[in-house]
């Protein structure tokens, strides 16, 4: 009997959160995500044999191990250890604003989303034989894991990601500058942040990273509740990072606010794209696969 199972990478984050911890979720997402591709182009196929695995639809028929088929009457494909050619740095924003959700517990926080997206990206990168490092920051870098490859690195990454807490303000530019100085070898820098930061200084820092030869991919995590003001009449809105308050009649500014968010996103895009910095707005209410696809597009360009 065939049991249909929904692919985890296509699940809503709220559903995904019920599956388990970071590691399990990331594995499920990545497996589902890779299975959904027609082939697995990002698995290395170098001359050095690594292992056999069960054939999956979409795998290249050239790599089927016909001897194993003759012995076991099952299809296996041969996999090879690819040479490491990419060093990836995951920069995760853990400021207080990342711990916010517009509709808890139905909608996970932006940090949850960043944590799982980072884990999934790490798994993909590690499976491709790349090395992955991690830096978590708010006003300063609060955690750092140098880039390495292998299963142990994966487990360490998951452990570090699981322990992240959303606290403090966001002076991302400081942390980014510090990281830019530390990252001496060129690589892929993936920033996961809600970008509630000083825009100009942050752009300058990102451009500095680009200037240092890094490929930069920015995931702008946006809660749906940040695109639209809540359905309230009048309210005092409080910034959890700065404790700044603003008295607003929601009905009066709703449309202007929507326009302001749109303008801000467009401004990020306008200011980053010309400098070769990829910018993706990630809605935390949408499946992780969408963000992963953005990564794949970037990875394909990198070769």
């Amino acid at each position, binding site marked *: 009997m065939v049991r249909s199972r929904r692919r985890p990478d296509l699940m809503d984050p709220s559903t995904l959160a019920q599956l388990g911890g970071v590691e399990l979720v990331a594995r499920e997402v990545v497996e589902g995500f890779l299975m959904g591709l027609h082939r697995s182009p990002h698995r290395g196929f170098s001359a050095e044999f690594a292992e056999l695995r069960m054939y999956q639809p979409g795998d290249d028929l050239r790599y089927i191990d016909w001897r194993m088929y003759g012995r076991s009457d099952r299809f296996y494909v041969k996999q090879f250890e690819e040479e490491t050619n990419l060093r990836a740095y995951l920069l995760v924003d853990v400021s207080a604003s990342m711990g916010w959700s517009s509709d808890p517990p139905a909608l996970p926080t932006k940090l949850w989303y960043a944590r799982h997206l980072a884990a999934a990206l790490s798994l993909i990168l590690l499976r491709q034989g790349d090395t992955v490092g991690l830096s978590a920051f708010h006003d300063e870098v609060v955690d750092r894991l140098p880039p390495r490859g292998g299963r142990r690195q994966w487990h360490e990454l998951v452990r570090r990601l699981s322990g992240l807490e959303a606290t403090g303000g966001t002076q991302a530019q400081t942390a980014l500058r510090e990281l830019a100085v530390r990252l001496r070898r060129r690589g892929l820098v993936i920033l996961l942040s809600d970008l509630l930061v000083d825009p100009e200084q942050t752009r300058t820092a990102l451009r500095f990273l680009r200037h240092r030869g890094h490929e930069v991919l920015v995931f702008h995590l946006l809660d749906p509740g940040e695109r639209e003001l809540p359905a309230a009449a009048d309210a005092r809105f*409080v910034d959890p990072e700065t404790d700044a308050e603003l008295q607003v009649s929601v009905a*009066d500014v709703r*449309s202007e606010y929507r326009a302001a968010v749109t303008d801000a996103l467009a401004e990020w895009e306008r200011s980053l794209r010309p400098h070769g910095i990829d910018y993706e707005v990630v809605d935390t209410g949408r499946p992780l696969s969408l963000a992963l696809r953005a990564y794949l597009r970037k990875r394909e360009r990198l070769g």
Partner: protein
Amino acid sequence: MSFLSPWFLLAATAVAVPLALHLFHRHESRRVVFPALRYLLRTEKEHARRIRLRQLLLLLLRCAVVVLLALAGARLVVSGRGAAHPPTAVVVILDNSLSSGRVLGEDRVLDRLKAAALDGLAAATPEDRVWVLRAGEPWDVAVPATPDEARVRIRTTEPSGARGDLQSAVRRARQLVADADMAAGEVHLVSDLQASGFDPTPRETPEAEGADVPVVVWAGLEAGPADNRYLLEAEIGGGLPPLANRRTEIAVTLAGGDPQGGEVPVRLFVDGRVRGAAAVVPGAAAVLPVGPFPPGWVEGYVEADPDALRDDDRRWFAVPVRPPPTVALSGDAGVFVSSALDVLTDAGRARVGSPASADVLLAPAGAGLDAVPDARRVVLAPADPSLLPAVNRRLADAGLDWRLRADAGGGEAGIAESAVPVELDAVRVRQRYLLEAPAGTPGTVLVRLSDGTPWIVAVNGGRAPLLLVGSPLDDQASSLPVDAAMVPLVEWIVTGWGAGGVRAPTQVGGALPLPSAATEVETPDGTRLPVDGSLELRTTRLAGIYRAFRGDSLLELLAVNPPVSESMLAALTEDEAEARLGEMAWVDNPDRWSRETFTRRQGYESWRILLALALVLLLLETWVAASGGQRRSSATPVPSPS
């Protein structure tokens, strides 16, 4: 500008709600943790002025909506002529008297009056209260109605054949309006304004309640020909009832019309059959022989060819036919009375018999009053004043309160008033007694002398009617015995009064006296009405013969004829009408009629416009509240989430 429901203006105080919300509400708002505050700050910074302007615009729109709703609820009326008026008590006096049946061109006068009355109610609203008073049916009960019910009542009105007492109707209408206690009130008088509907001469009336109620008089009716021809009288037997098996005559008098117009055919109908015909010139009379009849009742009518006003071209009569009455003398009445009785006996108009069997007892000095208590009795005053005590004692014994007293004034006196159908103008009275009775005693003065003293009095208080004559019937006391009126007077006493007389016809709309034993009356259209014989029948709407019954037994036939006054067509002028009705609005054209009715109209009621405007402002408020960023967002590319 005014308001029909001004208390609703209090609702305008609700404008304080949006004001309070605008000024105070935001200080009591809830606290929301919101990390994207920088976008809000940016919004506030970039759009502060526009937001403030829009908030102000929204505030103004919301306040305007509240004010418009309050104005609509208060029923704002803008100046100018229009349909709006406060709830009004309206009394429509529709003149359906006999003259309203006149034909003008293709229509009856009443049809035109009904159209005018309906026009007058065109502006009425369901909040108004309307009474329709039919002037030709004064007994009609006034019932308040809705305008629609009033219109139905107007449309179903027909000419009544009675006289319309418009002055009484106007007084009654004003009283109704005053009692209605409504915001406004007025009286619409819709009439052909014939003088017969008013008192002949203006007279001062005391200030009555409702005197300030405006009266609008419709005077737009064309005059039409005034020379209406009508039957003035149809008198049978010269006022004396016909005797059984003897011929009699009917005198028919035609009046009005054009005397130069030639003769008019007149026909006599008795018991439904033509019994005579004549051609009469208007202003003249024709005498038509009729009879003989057996004992009983004779009924019929005389009619002339119809003209524009047809209801007065027929007059009805109903008379009893009896055998000649038996007369008895209870004493010496003198040679003149005896001679007169001999003449009547020889002519077959009366019979002389014993007091016990007499229909009429002539009692000189009251002699023998007790002997025939059921007969009609005539008490002749004695020539000798010393007999007065004995006469008064006999009257007292007969249960009568009338007395004769000797101290009447001296000298000769003429006849001042007479209800007796005999020419008594030449009679001079030298000796007479004063006829007196305590106040309230029944009795009717039939003949009054020029010095004011009663001379012949009819008394109905005892078991049978009694006639008191204040002088002895001899040539010493008066000139009557030697006057030509002597025999006719005695004949009237014996065959007219003594036989019950010929009842004068009642006019349509007048009260019809009934026989005391009557239990039912059949009207000319065949309707049987239960009645109390001790009362009068007031609903005499139709001309014709009314039949009084006791059970199934016919008691009496009663003729009811159109009022002659209604036939004399003469419309009042504005001044004459004002002199009789007081202050009024005289309207003689249809355009003014629609303007002068509902005089408290205050203009156009605007609640529909105000509600529509409020709705438009609400939609505008919704649009303004929802507008803003869409215009900008359409001009800026929006990054979509991956």
